[in-house]
């Protein structure tokens, strides 16, 4: 059996500022090479923060990270200077939600890709540009030669995201992080980008962590799904397990709130309430205030973590005896 590519053990992230925010509260995650995991959750649940922890992209002076993060054998939290820079983009790279904001507006696409390759592989600018062109061709940007000299604002949203993917994959990372890469795109373009990502992932044989709030997207691209709420995973499992037999009331709520299978004219079953503010470390079940099957003990103690088999976890008192919801 091969070693896992990513191992996160009891990772916590706390932001200090005018007020403290407990953004991530004990995330455990194991990812094998070539595997795809989706982290599913609503805004503010800590999914992007979890992702950025893997690249150490959070502002150093205001962030306190606890636990252990290992990627490809390296202890990410203790990386420094050049070693950290080699890790970023070389071993793990990232696609951002809005490529318009994530690409430098005053450099051409070709330059931005070549720069990354030159940095990581120490090759000439000429060779870097050649690689950039090759990458743009692989992400199937129309007339790639011309796009090499284009600036981000001169391209459409879909093309920009393709360019972003080309940039992220240009140094053959082992792990690709995708932070809601299709949220800022048109629905038709979304599907193209998803298909492209899935295809490239197989071609390059890399693992992928995909952050999204769209169950449909998660089902489309991933092998496993982790449902995140208030900074912790409340349920993990294979796509099939999560869709067919969700055990956590939050997961059930998310599935019920989906448009698929909804009857016309009927109201969607939305989850009432809003997620907690996370100013203090949770001492009870974070979902309890919104939960339809809440019991008194949910509000006094942390719910048990129930592990069925490796990769299948539910953080709820109802995990074992299914509740009548």
């Amino acid at each position: 059996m091969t070693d896992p590519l990513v191992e996160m053990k009891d990772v916590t992230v706390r932001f200090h500022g005018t007020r403290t925010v407990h953004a991530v509260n004990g995330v455990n995650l194991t990812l094998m090479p070539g595997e795809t995991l989706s982290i599913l959750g609503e805004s503010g649940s800590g999914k992007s923060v979890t992702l950025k922890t893997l690249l150490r992209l959070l502002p150093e002076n205001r962030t306190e990270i606890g636990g252990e993060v290992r990627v490809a054998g390296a202890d990410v939290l203790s990386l420094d200077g050049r070693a950290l820079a080699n890790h970023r983009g070389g071993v793990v790279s990232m696609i951002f939600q809005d490529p318009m904001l994530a690409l430098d507006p005053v450099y051409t696409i070709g330059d931005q890709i070549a720069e990354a390759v030159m940095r990581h592989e120490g090759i000439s600018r000429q060779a870097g540009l050649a690689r950039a062109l090759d990458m743009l061709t692989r992400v199937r940007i129309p007339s790639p030669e011309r796009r090499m000299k284009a600036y981000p604002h001169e391209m459409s949203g879909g093309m920009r995201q393709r360019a972003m993917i080309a940039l992220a994959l240009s140094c053959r990372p082992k792990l690709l992080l995708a932070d809601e890469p299709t949220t800022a795109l048109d629905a038709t373009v979304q599907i193209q980008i998803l298909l492209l990502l899935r295809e490239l992932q197989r071609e390059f044989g890399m693992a992928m962590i995909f952050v999204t709030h769209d169950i449909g997207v998660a089902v489309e691209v991933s092998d496993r799904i982790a449902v995140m709420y208030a900074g912790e995973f409340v349920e993990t499992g294979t796509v099939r397990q999560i869709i067919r037999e969700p055990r956590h009331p939050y997961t059930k709520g998310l599935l019920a709130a989906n448009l698929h299978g909804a009857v016309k004219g009927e109201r969607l079953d939305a989850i009432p309430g809003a997620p907690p503010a996370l100013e203090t470390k949770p001492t009870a079940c974070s979902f309890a205030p919104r939960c339809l099957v809440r019991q008194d003990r949910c509000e006094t103690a942390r719910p048990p973590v129930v592990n069925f088999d490796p990769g299948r976890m539910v953080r709820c008192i109802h995990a074992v005896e299914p509740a009548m919801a």
Partner: protein
Amino acid sequence: MLSYILKRLALTIPVAFGVSIVCFMLVHIAPGDPLTSVLPPDASAQLQAEMRALYGFDRPLPVQYGLWVLKTLQGDLGVSIATGRPVASELGKALGNTLMLAVLATLIGFLFGCLFGFVAGYFRDSWIDRLASFVSIIGVSVPHYWLGMVLVIIFSVQLNWLPATGAGPGGSADWAWDWVHVRHLILPAVTMSVIPMGIIARTVRALVAEILSQEFVSGLRAKGLLDFGVFRHVVKNAAPTALAVMGLQLGYLLGGSILIETVFSWPGTGFLLGQAIFQRDLPLLQGTILVLAMFFVALNLIVDIVQSMLDPRVQRA
């Protein structure tokens, strides 16, 4: 690119005409007769009328304006009432001196302003940021003629290192690039550089802080760039705005240096302008203001073009 430059160039023509009208009107709105200061108080009415006809002050204003523009376009700015010398040649000499001073002051100010600004923006809210901000606020708020006098007291009077006034030994007006002359340039240039330094430092600090908060900086770190690599991107993003501010500052310094040039008796346009105002030397005043204004227009044009070369997004606007 070329079409953008041509378009921008064409746009400056109406601006230039507008500027010339304002120049002309301003000078004529001011009360008082320009000839009273040069004519003896007991001059006869006939002599006054002759002089007025000689300088063309007896014609209607629109005609005066038309003639002035026509002559100006041919490079003739008229004759100074006070000295009787052609305005163009007086102005040419003064312009050279001021240009030298202003360019040097802007370069010094730009260099230190960028240095302070980048450091302050990069290490925001640290002691080094507070120090740099303190220095730049002093630069903007200290009265410059006062600073000039203080520098003269320290470096000329007390230490006797540098000359206090003039542009050459013994008040000679001919410039040469040797130490004897360059010595005269140092104090006024340093005094003057404090203005653009403060403004550029504050602009660059805000710019750098704003750029660093943008998501693409995360993107740059995410692809593994080292600090220097990220810095290069920040510089290129900040350059268009910083250069624009520098160009405008140069424009201000070209015309706005009356006080400093007076303190140092620097024979530049500010000095000339001061003289023209006090002597009510209408042709000289008009000519000087017009040329300075045209410089400002030209600088704006250059800044716009350079900016469009540095920032690909500008061309679209």
